[in-house]
């Protein structure tokens, strides 16, 4: 793990100029391996009808090399990585403007380091104009302009109408120099130049890989490093990627900032750190506990609304139905109860039955206070104080003296966080006391055992049966869907192998049924 110091330099002391440079460097390392004489991709000259195609390799060659030499699993991954590198211009198909990798006999060529994106090219439209103009002078079928290039040329002619004579002269000069070159060399250089423009002026519909995230581009770039002129002075050619820049990305801290940092680190030194083994165990425990609730890992009981186009899943979540899976989750920790409205309601109900609901009511009131608009806050603070904390309060809560004093202080200037200390104390109390009693209570246990969502069909069946058999069996809760008639029960039990829970209510048996 590389240690970074406060100004973000990595351990080599090198400061990268832009996040893109990291990517370019990784790609260039890979290109170096691909170009290795012994273990790289075999580059050859192919004889075609009347001429030779110099310095090429096929798409399949690239894919095969990647699968053999990189930790790549399959062809799809190889094509993805290869297309990415082609789109950045590190190698290109010799007969196509679209920069992508195909796993077939299509011929590819490496780009010359002069044109690598790590040179921070930002070529101007005048250069593009010179290039397109030059192409029209070269009178070769293979160099004919594509439609989009012809359109660009026409547009540029309009834009640079005044400069056009100058551009034309540049193009002529370039063409002359090119003519003097060796035929084979020309073929290679022409294709590399074209690939460069395919990166910076891509075919319409293709991704422009030189586009930068505006968050990054608005940061100060070192103007010396950006290269704008392709056909300008030749003496700024560099064939290796630059590694040192002038302007560091992360600024140095000032004296005040350094003092703050030192104070911060001093405090950090004394903090308690938990052992990794314990932390790891708790992480594993958490992911395992919630595994069944994670729809990406466990198919949910009810249908996935995005697949099946119906929404029982959401209806159930919104309903007040305390389904077993939901109830079980409340047992994971007090936060799960407080997060779920139904859990909150059940918890409150339980506490009210014990006449100890003031803690939860206080906690809920403070939560609600924090969301209020600021103008309502002082009144509400006073109300909460009167209800829970003042002398003779109707719902007195027990806070430790420190929190009580702090709260009394806060009341002088009541804000949203006036009760923060008291709330924290009450939360801890609830967690250790009320919550554990709730989870152990028969009310909760019953919810856990009893109610599972009945399949819609059986709800109808039960409603019907209850209606029919009401008189004969004197069911205590005629509207309860959980009540069953004895004659139906054996049938259902056989079919579904379900446990039955019998409890005595009002001198008759009510039978609860589970559907699995």
């Amino acid at each position, binding site marked *: *793990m590389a240690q970074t*110091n*406060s*100004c*973000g330099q990595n351990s080599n002391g090198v400061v*990268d100029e832009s*996040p893109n440079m*990291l*990517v370019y460097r*990784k790609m260039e390392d890979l290109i170096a391996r691909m170009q290795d004489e012994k273990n790289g991709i075999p580059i050859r000259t192919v004889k075609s009808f009347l001429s030779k195609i110099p310095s090429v390799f096929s798409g399949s060659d690239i894919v095969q090399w990647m699968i053999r030499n990189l*930790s*790549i699993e399959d062809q799809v*991954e190889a094509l*993805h*990585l290869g297309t*990415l590198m082609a789109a950045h211009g590190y190698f290109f198909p010799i007969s196509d403007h679209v920069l992508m990798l195909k796993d077939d006999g299509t011929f590819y060529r490496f780009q010359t380091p002069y044109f690598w994106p790590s040179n921070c090219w930002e070529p101007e439209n005048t250069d593009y104009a010179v290039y397109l103009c030059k192409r029209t002078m070269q009178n070769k079928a293979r160099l004919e302009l594509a439609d989009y290039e012809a359109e660009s040329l026409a547009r540029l002619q309009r834009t640079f109408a005044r400069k056009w004579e100058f551009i034309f002269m540049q193009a002529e000069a370039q063409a002359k120099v090119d003519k003097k070159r060796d035929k084979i060399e020309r073929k290679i250089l022409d294709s590399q130049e074209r690939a460069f423009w395919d990166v910076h002026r891509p075919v319409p519909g293709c*991704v422009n890989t030189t586009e930068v995230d*505006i*968050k990054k581009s608005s940061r100060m770039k070192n103007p010396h490093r950006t290269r704008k002129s392709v056909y300008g002075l030749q003496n700024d050619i560099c064939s290796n990627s630059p590694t040192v820049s002038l302007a560091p990305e*992360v*600024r140095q*801290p000032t*004296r005040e900032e*350094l003092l703050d940092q*030192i104070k*911060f*680190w*001093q405090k*950090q*030194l004394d*903090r308690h*750190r*938990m*052992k*990794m*083994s314990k*932390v*790891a165990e*708790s*992480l*594993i425990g958490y*992911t395992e506990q*919630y*595994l069944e609730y*994670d*729809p*990406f*890992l466990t198919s*949910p009981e009810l249908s*996935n609304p*995005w*697949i099946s186009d119906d*929404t029982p899943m959401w209806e159930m979540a919104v309903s007040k139905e305390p389904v077993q899976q939901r109830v079980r989750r409340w047992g994971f920790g007090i936060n799960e109860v407080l997060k779920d409205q139904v859990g909150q309601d059940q918890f409150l109900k339980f506490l009210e039955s014990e006449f100890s609901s003031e803690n939860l009511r206080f906690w809920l009131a403070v939560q609600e206070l*924090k*969301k*209020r*608009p*600021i*103008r309502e806050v002082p009144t509400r603070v006073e109300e909460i104080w009167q209800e829970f904390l003042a002398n003779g309060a109707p719902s007195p809560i027990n806070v430790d003296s420190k929190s009580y004093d702090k709260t009394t202080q806060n009341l002088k200037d009541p804000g949203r966080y006036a009760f*923060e200390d008291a709330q924290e104390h009450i939360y801890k109390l609830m967690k250790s006391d009320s919550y554990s009693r709730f989870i152990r209570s028969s009310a909760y246990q019953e919810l856990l055992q009893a109610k599972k969502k009945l399949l819609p069909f059986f709800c109808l069946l039960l409603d019907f049966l209850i209606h029919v058999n009401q008189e004969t069996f004197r069911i205590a809760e005629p509207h309860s869907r959980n009540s069953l008639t004895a004659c139906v029960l054996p049938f259902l039990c056989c079919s579904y192998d379900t446990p039955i829970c019998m409890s005595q209510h009002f001198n008759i048996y009510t039978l609860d049924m589970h559907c699995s």
Partner: protein
Amino acid sequence: MGEMEQLRKEAESLKDQISAARKAVHDVTLPEIVSGTAVVGRVQLKTRKTLRGHLAKIYAMHWGTDSKLCVSASQDGKLIVWDSYTTNKVHAIPLKSSWVMTCAYAPSGNMVACGGLDNMCSIYNLKGKDGNVKVMRELAAHTGYLSCCRFLNDSEIITSSGDCTCALWDIETGTQKTIFSGHMGDCMSLAVSHDFNMFISGACDYTAKLWDIREGACRQTFGGHESDINAIGFFPNGNAVLTGSDDGTCKMYDLRADQELITYQDPSIMCGVTSLAPSLSGRLILAGYDDFNCNIWDSLKAERVGVLAGHDNRVSCIGVTPDGMAACTGSWDSFLKIWN
């Protein structure tokens, strides 16, 4: 030795001591402990819906708490609130500045916020009296671009900015209540804890910081990345922090152990991470990259267990619904896709 030199040395020495203290509790690595845990197996998520309507790069998206509505922001100068299930556009809000970088949905569902190169955070009221969506507040005080914003409730919002600070605002008065300074580089993203007491920020100084909202103080700092941290999020248990960086890696830091637990990386991944989101249980981490794909990582074993391939340009944002049912990716190709 000048005073600055002395101070720098002191800071370095303290950091070395803390490194040693962290090493002292590093009794085992995560890969060692999880070797016995069951494998997750290949995770295949399919595109269920494609949300079409933006005309330019999408820079940000955020789910509402109902897990159905979401908001997205695009360089075409629009904020769109979608019903992701029906793919209908519930609201299409034109923005004053098209250079938008972030958007957020209030937990109540009453408001959305956005901001960008205008250095402001604009709050829009979705439940206005006449049914029109109007600007409710423009929070202006940052001296740099607005990279991220998240609502605490209808009255408070936290923002992160290119001016290297984060801030807590009172929406009603439009003022900054607390400024969180300490980062030495542009703050790129932030995430709020489930109890709304803390938040974390990732910045271009390659560090992530944990802040106490009420006190306004930085509680912990984590380093280790080799480039800008673009994405940050809490692990669902609230005790760990996930970060994604331009160095192509994601990392998980534990708050209680005060150090990095594990790095999620692969030599064949060359491009930076733009966004990330954990699944409901935390076992999976979905991360969006500059290479147009989204990779799914097994958070415990640090292995890639799936890929979401379907965008034709950079994946710029990703979010998992609060109920864990679906993931949404937004891309520079102008489309949002819902996966599960």
